Each structure stands twice: as C-alpha cells, then as structure tokens.
C-alpha cells in the first residue's frame, strides 16, 4: 500500500428524504492526521460510518487501507479502529472486560492480548481502574478507554468521531496529547471529525471543511486561512513619534493605514515572514515601537467566507435522527 490510507471518490449517501453526503471526494496520506471540520448535520458522521463499513454509500467508492469499504468490508474492519461519537462501551462490564471482549472480537489471544490490554490502559492512564465497572467512569475516562480500546488491535487507520465533544477543557487537552502521541509513536493515520476549530487547527495536518454534505475547502490550517487572505500587523509607537508622517512602504505590504496617531495597521499576506522584514525597516528608520501584535484569520472566518454562516451558529441546523424509527 503506497501513500494513501483513505481514498474517497464521489460518495453520496441519501437517506429517505435527506442527502447526508453529497458527492464527497478526498484522500488521506499514510501517517497523516486528517480532519473533517463542519457544523453538526454537515454529514461528517455519515462519512465516517461509510468509511467504517457501517453504512453503504448510495453511490461512489471509498478505499480504506487499500480495501473497498463495500466489497471488502471484512478486510477493512481488521485495519481500522474507531471511537464513535456516542459512547459504545458496555458499562455493566469492567474496563478490562471491555478491552478483553474487543480484543477477542479482533482475533487477539492469550498472553499477547493480556499484555496489550495493560499496555493500552497504561497509555491512557487507566491502569488503576481496570477492574472497575465502566458505569462508574466519568465522561473523560470513558473516552480515554474507548481510545485505548480502538488502538488495542493495532489498526492502520484510526477514526475519531468528535473525540472531545462534551468534555471539559483539561480533558480535551489530554485527549489532544494522546492523538499527537498516537501519530508520533505509532505512526497511525488518524481521521477525525470535529466542529471545534481550535481542535482541527491543533491536531490536523490537513483539514476539509464540510457543509451540507459537501466539502467546500481542503488544505492545511494555514492554507485555509490564506483563502480569506491577509493578516494584519499592528504597530504601536511612542507618543511623540512623528518621523513618519504617512505610512510605511515596502513590496510585502499590501495596505497600510494610520488608525491613530500612534497606531499603525499594516495588511500583509503572511505575518510570520513579514514581521522580520518590518523590523528591519523600523530599525533603519530608527523608530521606537512599543507594541507589536498581529491578527491572523481564524478558521471561523474561513467558514463564514465559504458558507456565509458562522460555524457555531449552525448548531441549530437540522441533524439526522440517530435511529430511523420504524415503530
């Protein structure tokens, strides 16, 4: 298998009257952390369910770890680990038993299984709670246990569906830490969905922004932000500053504007490379600067410019029912 862990081509998933996924294509490289960012109801979970063989696409093809998710679903299942959006633990069993049953269902046995369970419980710092029933676990502990469980059979691709939803900030940070370690220590391809921009930005090498069943943009966080364009640098001078009556000029400066007497706003393409050059000019002109700050566009602004809506406003956006009821 070369290069691509996941390949998705024009998948469509229609439920009775809703089109949840509408012709999505993307590919994920091996060892990459790839994020699907979008509001609730965008079709992220449906996409994950298709990739994990739980749903059949209405049309289109998808390959995970080199296998077709429809025709070779058995092989795909062996290669993937999943943490679902909703908990999927058996809370009447102990943490150890949850791990044990999972390992058995994935064909692990005996001492290998036992030592692997302890290793993974240790990885998520749950070793001390191994004989405790899951019903006594907090939300964060459950999530950690699910991560440990999904890694037990050493999958090639790990799917995380909204891994930090409903968790407190400290627990989120801890989970991020695990994801980084999974990538670094185990070289597992991670595919995650989220509606938190900071999460996508922190964790993902590449991000797709999904809205209403379609991918509206793809790229690294920086690339996406450059879609909305420029970054702004603010320079604050000492009050008595008068030497430059107008503005600074250079070829990397797109626009310059004196907001106040002592405050200058400089629009540039990329603040990180512009700042050193700017300091050079400032030094040359011998201007005394007291404060420098710069603002980069956030993914939220990217989302607004792409969809015309705010990411967090779209929470009311209709979601798919969890179970389509027949009774």
């Amino acid at each position, binding site marked *: 298998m070369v290069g691509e862990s996941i390949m998705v081509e024009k998948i469509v998933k229609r*439920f009775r009257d809703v089109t949840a996924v509408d012709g999505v294509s993307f590919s994920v490289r091996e060892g990459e952390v790839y994020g699907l960012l979008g509001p609730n109801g965008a079709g992220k979970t449906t996409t994950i369910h298709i990739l994990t063989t*739980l749903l059949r696409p209405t049309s289109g093809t998808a390959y995970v770890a080199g296998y077709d998710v429809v025709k070779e679903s058995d092989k795909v299942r062996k290669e*993937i680990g999943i943490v679902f959006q909703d*908990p*999927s633990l*058996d809370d009447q069993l102990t943490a150890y038993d949850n791990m044990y049953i999972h390992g058995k269902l994935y064909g692990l046995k005996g001492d290998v299984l036992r030592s692997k369970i302890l290793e993974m419980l240790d990885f998520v710092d749950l070793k001390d709670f191994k004989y405790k029933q899951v019903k006594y676990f907090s939300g964060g502990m459950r999530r950690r246990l699910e991560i440990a469980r999904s890694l037990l059979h050493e999958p090639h691709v790990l799917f995380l569906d909204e891994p930090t939803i409903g968790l407190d900030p400290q627990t989120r940070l801890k989970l991020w830490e695990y994801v980084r370690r999974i990538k670094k220590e185990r070289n597992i391809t991670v595919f995650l969905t989220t509606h938190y921009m900071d999460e996508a930005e922190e964790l993902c090498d590449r991000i797709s922004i999904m809205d209403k069943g379609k991918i509206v943009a793809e790229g690294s966080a920086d690339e996406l932000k450059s879609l909305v364009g420029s970054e702004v640098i603010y320079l604050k001078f000492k009050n008595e500053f008068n030497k430059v009556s107008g503005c600074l000029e250079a070829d990397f400066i797109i626009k310059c504007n004196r907001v106040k007497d002592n405050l200058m706003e400089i629009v540039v393409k990329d603040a990180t490379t512009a700042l050193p050059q700017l300091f050079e000019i400032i030094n040359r002109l011998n201007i005394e600067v007291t404060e420098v700050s710069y603002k980069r566009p956030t993914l939220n602004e990217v989302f607004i410019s792409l969809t015309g809506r705010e990411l967090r406003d779209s929470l009311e956006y209709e979601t798919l029912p969890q179970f389509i009821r027949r009774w």
Partner: protein
Amino acid sequence: MDGFVTMIYRQIKRFINSRSRFVMSIVNPIIWIIFFGLGWSNVFRFPEAKVIFGGLDYLTYLASGMVAMSIIMSSFMSGMSVIWDKRFGFLKETLVAPASRAEVILGRAFGDSIISVFQGLIILIFMYFITSKINLLGVLPALTYGLILAMCFTSFGLVIALKLSSMEGFQMIINLMTMPLLFLGGIFYPIDSLPEWIKVIAYINPVTYAVDGMRYSLTRVSKFEPIVDVFILSSLAAIMSVLAVRSYNSTTIED
C-alpha cells in the same frame, strides 16, 4: 469460534454483574407458582382431576411448565439487551468488528440461553421441594429441552429487536406474544382440552413440544413421543437461529 465464545462470555459476565435482573426473572415464576399454582392445586383435589393431568397432581403437572415459562420469559430479555446495546452503542462495536457476524449473534443467543436455563434450573429446584415427585434422572434431559427452547426464543427476540429501536415497541410485541405462547403451550392445562381451532396454534407453538418433552423427562407423562418433541423443537430452533443470523448480517446502523 472466537466471536461465538466471546459473546457467550460477554452475556454471562454481564448477567453476573447485574443481580437485579437475576432476582426479577426468578421472582416472577415463583409468584405464579405460589398464587396460581397453589390456588388451583386445591381446586383440583377431586379424584377425577388426576385423569385430566395424566395421573399427576396439579402442582407436579405445573412444575415442568413453570420451568419452561421462566426460560421463555428470560429468553425474551435477550432481545431487550440488543435494544439496550443499540441505545448505548455497544451494538456498533460488534458490528464493526471483523469477527464473523453469524458467530457473534449465535454466541449472543447461546450465552443468553445458558442464562435462561440456569434460571429454569433454580425454578426446578424450587419445584422439587414443593412437589417432591420429580424424577431427578430427568433433570438433565429436561434442561436440554430448556436449552433448545431458549435458543428458539432468544433468536426470535433478536430478530424482532434488531428491527426495532424502541423498548416500548419491543415490550409491546413481546407482551402480545407471551400470553398465547404460554396458554397455548400446555403449561397450565393439557392442550387436548382446547377447542379444535385453537389446537392448531398449539401444534405450531414450540412451547408445546418443550413442555411436553420436559414433562416426560421429569414426570414420565407426555402427549407426544420424546423423539417427536426433540425433532420439532430442534427444527424450530434451527429456523429461528437462521433467521437471527440473516437479520444480523443485514443489520446496518440505519435500523
């Protein structure tokens, strides 16, 4: 075999961890025995009554039926646990596992059947002490009938539960089914005493054959040949199991 054994382990472990379920499924038949059985056994004191019940006193006649009843009741709980697993997500965990789905669902049915038979055994012990006319050599064959019966109804419950998502819906269907199954299965009275047109239902009811087989093993009274009981009961259980495997194979999370 991994999927099969694993699911048996899981169902039994889960049962051990939830004692309230155990207590409830024992208490129900015992309440029946006390209020229904003891009451009617006094009514059937007159000498001709024994003829109706194949020469047995009523409580002894009822013993086999009560064991079967407790097995049926707890077998249906298996379906209930699938709906719980749907709600609490564990079903997804088993659906996405590479283990064979046939093994997983049969393991689940068999694990729950073992639990049901264990509960049946407790009722049987209870009955032994209040009737003391039970043939102890027949206990093992009786429990075997019980196991096949349990496979029948755990599978049946699974087929229904896999199609449903609400507890209420499942409970409703089961309630609707339990009464005819119990009353037209020779648990409380011989099916011979039923009107002809109802007998038809009794003849396709797996409970009839399980109870008849158990009654033969435990009290040497029966309507059919034991071999007929075994054959028909096993066939029905096999059909149910195949249906369960088929509906689990086609299960996606859309259901």
